[in-house]
């Protein structure tokens, strides 16, 4: 495990900024943390298979005691760097992103299952959405009970989506919690 380089950090932040906007600073310096102690200072570490983990500095330092091939995971896996240098967010990052999301989309009860099976969200299934959301902006998808279900990219801006017919796609799925079952065999493997 090693810290990220400058370019890696920039790529990661630009991806996270799609969903969180300026609230990424809450990840770097949590509001309730004491910066002088390692226990609450958070950091990003690059592990095996180019996976990026979000964990406390204290935990990252402790992880140095474990041999690289034996170390499966540290903290929360946010995603991985592809071979072309882009960053792909995994569903495991939902816990980190959802509390600080900038734009949200609430799905009605009848739209939850289609979304969790990997489908895009149609207008008829939308309960409500954040106002002034531009086109192709990252959004966190929630159930009507505010339970985070995944995240996606909006197909149209809010104004345009209003005029859309009920079967029109409003949000393209990026990740959903159904992946925990569907991608069970590849989500946490290291080889």
């Amino acid at each position, binding site marked *: 495990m*090693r*810290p*990220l*380089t*400058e370019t890696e*950090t*920039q790529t990661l*932040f*630009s991806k996270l*900024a*799609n969903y969180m*906007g*300026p609230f*990424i*600073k809450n990840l*770097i*310096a949590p509001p309730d943390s004491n*910066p002088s102690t390692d226990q609450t*200072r958070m*950091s990003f570490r690059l592990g095996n298979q180019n996976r990026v983990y979000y964990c406390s500095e204290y935990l990252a330092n402790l992880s140095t005691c474990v041999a690289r091939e034996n170390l499966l995971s540290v903290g929360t896996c946010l995603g991985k760097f592809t071979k072309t240098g882009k960053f792909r967010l995994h569903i495991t990052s939902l816990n980190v992103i959802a509390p600080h999301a900038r734009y949200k989309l609430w799905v009605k009860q009848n739209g939850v299952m289609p979304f969790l099976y990997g489908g895009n969200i149609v207008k008829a299934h939308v309960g409500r959405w954040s106002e*002034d959301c*531009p*086109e*192709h*902006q990252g959004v966190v998808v929630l159930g009507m009970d505010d339970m985070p279900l995944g995240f996606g990219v909006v197909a149209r*801006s809010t*104004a*345009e989506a209003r005029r859309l017919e009920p079967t029109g796609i409003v949000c393209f799925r990026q990740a959903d919690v159904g992946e925990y079952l569907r991608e069970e065999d590849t989500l946490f493997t290291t080889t």
Partner: protein
Amino acid sequence: MAPTRTVKSKDFSKDGNKFKGSATPGVPGANMKSRVSKKPKAPPPKQQKTKLAAPAKKKKRVYTEKELGIPKLNMITPVGVELPKGKKKGKVFVDDQESMMTILAIVNANKAGQIESKIMKSRQMEEIREARRKEAEARQEQRNLKLEETKASMRKKRKRRSDVVVDTDPSGSDSKGAKASRKRVSFA
């Protein structure tokens, strides 16, 4: 160097007391000087030459290949392949909050600009669409008005015809009177 030594030895053997002559500037000293000056006039220039040559040699500094920075193989190295000297080898990690915050500020500025431009663009598009819609509505209204007008005119025509038919039916005198009242063409 050799000739000077020989001179000294000669002086010592002939005078016998060399120290006296050197201590008191008298006749023997003068003799010695003359003797010395006669024979070894040639060597001093040699000495000078050697003295001049020595500093010139010191100035010539031999540079090593490393100092000159000449590549071992005489081939072209593309720009950017070789790292500049004195720079850290390998990756530069970002692990402190300050540098992370600066990167975050750059990213946020970029994203904010993008979102702003997107919103501006969508608003402009919305305005254009609204204008087009209004124009289309106005055009439709005009068309409707025209249609209504033609309809009305057609109805009038039909009414007139029906009036004529109705008028002609009951009696010829009334209809003639009506016709006369309508037509007002006069020839002078």
